[in-house]
């Protein structure tokens, strides 16, 4: 086991999978030099045919990934910030997501999209969005939101091997998080949630960068004998409903904790699921702790006020358990 950062985990997954399959290749803006470091050094290992800086033309190169996937290769396509997907929404939502179905199963679409999402401090409204909520209702995309280095490596490798379009969301503030990662081949299947902490009184379903925060809140509350179970769905599509519902069946209380917005967001999606399929387990309403429904503001005190945070999670838990 070696200590690895979240970014290094990405880099390892990419290098391993590119070594494994010569039809994989990486493209995106500045992937050669790699500002965040995720694709650093790949150019030396795999050369310019398989590591390609693109023009700033998201619709063009994301659409090219779609064509390249259908023509038998396995593109790994980086869109720097999640909100730049908006410039290529047709290519993701109308093409990548639908062409397999529309072609009656003829098209294989083995694309892995990577992007940085979330607030990382003063990046403001156009560079701080979570964006995955906007893909939830498309049908035909898999959505992966790893919360730690080990999951990142294992999920990204699975994503690359998957024959469907998968978007992997990397939280911008997790880049330096360190952790031991199992040596050798390390795969985490898509569609399998992780119970990151076992608890009795309330289930917190936390997404992406909210997972370590939920764990901190759980630690704190444990001192008061409030026992919190933290479930990390890891992939939003496919969603491991069983693990989530089993947890709520045990605790009878649920909070969904997400950095996205409330309306139409991922927390809302999971809350509705629990509310419908887990209704009989519930002793109280499913609480949603999310970012306020405003564009993410620039100034630190405003950003802080907007974002989902530990204090609000704690308050929601306390209200549910009545302490």
């Amino acid at each position, binding site marked *: 086991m070696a200590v690895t950062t979240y970014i290094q985990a990405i880099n390892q997954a990419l290098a391993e999978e590119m070594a494994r399959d010569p*039809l994989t*290749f990486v493209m995106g803006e500045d992937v050669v030099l790699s500002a965040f470091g995720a694709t650093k050094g790949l150019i030396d290992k795999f050369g310019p*045919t*398989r590591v*390609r800086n*693109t*023009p700033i*033309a998201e*619709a*063009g*190169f*994301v*659409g*090219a*990934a*779609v*064509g*390249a*996937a*259908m*023509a*038998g*290769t396995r*593109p790994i396509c980086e869109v720097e910030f999640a909100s730049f997907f908006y410039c290529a929404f*047709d*290519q993701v939502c*109308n*093409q990548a997501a639908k*062409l*397999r*179905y*529309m*072609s*009656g*199963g*003829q*098209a*294989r679409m083995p694309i892995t999209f990577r992007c940085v999402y979330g607030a990382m401090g003063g990046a403001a409204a156009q560079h701080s969005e979570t964006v995955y909520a906007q893909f939830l209702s498309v*049908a*035909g995309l*898999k959505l992966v939101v790893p919360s730690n280095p080990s999951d990142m490596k294992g999920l990204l490798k699975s994503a690359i091997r998957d*024959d*469907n379009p998968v978007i992997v969301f990397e939280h911008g503030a997790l880049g330096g998080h360190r952790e031991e990662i199992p040596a050798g081949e390390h795969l985490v299947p898509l569609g399998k949630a992780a119970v990151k902490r076992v608890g009795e009184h309330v289930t917190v379903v936390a997404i992406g960068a909210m997972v370590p925060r939920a764990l901190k809140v759980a630690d704190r509350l444990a001192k008061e004998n409030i026992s919190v179970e933290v479930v990390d769905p890891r992939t939003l599509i496919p969603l491991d409903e069983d693990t989530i519902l089993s947890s709520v069946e045990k605790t009878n209380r649920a909070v969904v904790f997400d950095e996205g917005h409330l309306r139409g967001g991922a927390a809302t999606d999971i809350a509705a699921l629990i509310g419908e399929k887990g209704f009989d387990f519930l002793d109280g309403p499913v609480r949603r702790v999310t970012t306020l429904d405003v564009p993410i503001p620039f100034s630190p005190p405003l950003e802080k006020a907007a974002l989902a945070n530990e204090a609000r999670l704690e308050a929601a838990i306390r209200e549910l358990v009545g302490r």
Partner: protein
Amino acid sequence: MDLGKDLLLDMYRSMTRIRLFETKVRDLATANEIPGFVHVSIGEEASATGVCAALRKTDRITSTHRGHSHLIAKGGRLDRMMAELFGKRTGYCKGKGGSMHIVDFSLGILGANGIVGAGLPIATGSALAAVIAGTEDVTACFFGDGASNEGTFHESLNLAAVWKLPVVFVCENNGFGEFTPMRTVTSVKDIAVRAKAYDIPGHIVDGNDVLEVYRYASEAVARARAGEGPTLLECKTYRWEGHVVGEQAFLGAASYRTEQEVNEWKARCPLIRFDKFAAESGKISVTDLQRIKQETEVELEAAIKFARESPLPDASEVTEDVFT
């Protein structure tokens, strides 16, 4: 360029298949035997045919909402196409796609597409795949004059030019996007001029002359295959029919073009033009042409029968094919 008889007859067969198929499809859609939006290419047979004649079987194409002609020219089967239009399980897409989404991967047909301009990046990526995989395949990308104003046109041509990808961009300029005359929404008279913005060759081609299309396409395909990058071909042509079958019903009395204009273009019919060439060149006999026409009629009748008699998909199939 001296073309062999087989090639000439193949092109004639392709144009005939398109003309007869499209005419029939128009009638079937008008009679509501085919649901959904149907766009036909009557009058535009030569561009699809000339380009695809210059391709190998392993080469690939992308197409548009007005895609039947491209699929047929690349070798698409009329029976499975017709079955798809009828929404039958035996159709190319098991009934899931319909007219705007027909795909045949075994023939390198990456698909028609309901989104204007969507095929351009896909074709670019298909050409990129050839480079990654180290094959010699070329991709031809069909799109309309209207699509040439979409951002994907720009992004794709730039990308293909920078990476010298083996792709041929074929603009079928029929003078209209839906009911809007091209010149009222397009800043240039000739789309081919836009090649200058990517430092690639751009040619204006008589899109109703299959031999001229074939010549330009062959050159562009050879260039692409040699690793010299993309070419932009603008095939000037015209659609005899409306934008979408049945448009008269909702447009009412309003019209967006004169009968005279339509008739002028009908006089430039690609098939009549070919007949004339055949007669003048002496290479091909009228019997050959008639035989092909008859064979195509038989093929088409069989296709319609196949489509009519094929089963509809079962409701249970609705959730299949979202993911592998």
